[in-house]
């Protein structure tokens, strides 16, 4: 049996790693995946790879599979409300995912 799911993606500054992870946990998502990324947005280009003094300003990407669209939006709103005024970031979702196998979902 498979299960419909929504995939929420949040890309923001590495500095916020733990804070965003905490929010995801609190809202009750079954888990998340984090990936280091570089990129460019409306603000300034993030340093990808090359040694810059302290890499605390490069980006991270969270991917969170949630059972409901609501949960995804809830996480996204919370993160945006707390951080997106001051930190760069973007969040988007895709709600036609299907989870095939998971230890807990």
């Amino acid at each position, binding site marked *: 049996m498979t299960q419909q799911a929504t995939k929420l993606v949040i890309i923001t500054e590495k500095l916020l790693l733990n804070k965003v992870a905490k929010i995801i946990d609190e809202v009750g998502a079954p888990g998340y995946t984090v990936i280091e990324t570089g990129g460019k947005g409306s603000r300034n280009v993030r340093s990808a790879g090359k040694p810059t003094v*302290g890499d605390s300003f490069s980006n991270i990407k969270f991917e969170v599979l949630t059972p409901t669209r609501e949960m995804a939006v809830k996480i996204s709103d919370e993160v*945006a409300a707390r951080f997106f*005024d001051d930190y760069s970031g973007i969040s988007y979702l895709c709600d036609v995912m299907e989870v095939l196998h998971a230890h807990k979902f």
Partner: protein
Amino acid sequence: MDFLSDFLTLFLSKLQSPTLGFLVGGMVVAAVNSRLQIPDSIYKFVVFMLLIKVGLSGGIAIRNANLAEMLLPAVFAVATGILIVFIGRYTLGLMPKVKTVDAIATAGLFGAVSGSTLAAGLTLIESEGLEYEAWAAALYPFMDIPALVTAIVLASLYINKQKQRIAAGEQLNIQEYASKQPVAAGGYPSEQRGNSGGYSITASGYPQRDTAGERVKIWPIIKESLQGSALSALLLGLALGLLTRPESVYESFFNPLFRGLLSILMLVMGMEATARLGELRKVGQWYALYAFAAPLLHGFIAFGLGMIAHYTTGFSLGGVVILAVIACSSSDISGPPTLRGGIPSANPSAYIGASTAVGTPVALALGIPLFIGLAQALGG
């Protein structure tokens, strides 16, 4: 007159040190878009090696030092750190098109200390044979932390005041406030208000949290600073030097590698300086001006205070130079993340650009030789 000529010759003779060569070399390498890179992990490790060595030598020597002597210089360090922030807020902060919070954050970073600059300073001081107290390098945190704390507190007070005024509906003030925003400071606050091309979107018009009147906590900031990688390495070295017997490994490993690793670090600093120049340009010439003048001013203030300690409590001239170098330096490793977290609304391009692209090179190329030359000229 005689003094001046003495000083000038001494000053110029300093400018040929290999350390500076690597710094300039790094600037050029980056300027010509070379693909030469020092991997990030190497850079991190080099910084660790330099600061733990500084700590170790300090710790070993402190064992039988009279720490009471440290009191006055430490007080002066704290005072300088705090003073630097206020100077920045009321000079840079008042310039047109300079956002106040950005100015405060920048001043905080210039008040904070650069481990790399300190390491470079110690090398030159030693090769010049200037005497200094074993604990002098331990003055680092006494200036670093107060500066960062002051900046973050000052900024949050300012922001809360703004919020209240706005709440009180002083439209004028808002315009003034808005008008002070740089047009393209890394496209920062402008984009925030979505007024450049695309528009910003939100899923459900999320509520502005009302942070006005929030009191800023100081202890977390101090902890955050102490947990920084640079300061941690320095303190770890101090502790190990004091409590264990690391002489063997110090002599066979940390000490001999020091100068070489320092030259590598200078290379990275140079590359960084060029890389950040663009960001600095974005935030306008006032930052460049401040970044050039401030380090020397800060150094002179600390040098002056140091001399007071020199005459009253016999603080060594080498120690005076170290105090001046600490003041002259601007943080490039631990400071930025602390400020990013502590003053989120400040534009990192502004303070990092100013510190890395201009502040640090000035401290290394002018500050260090300047204050050593000064001490030597005074020392006779």
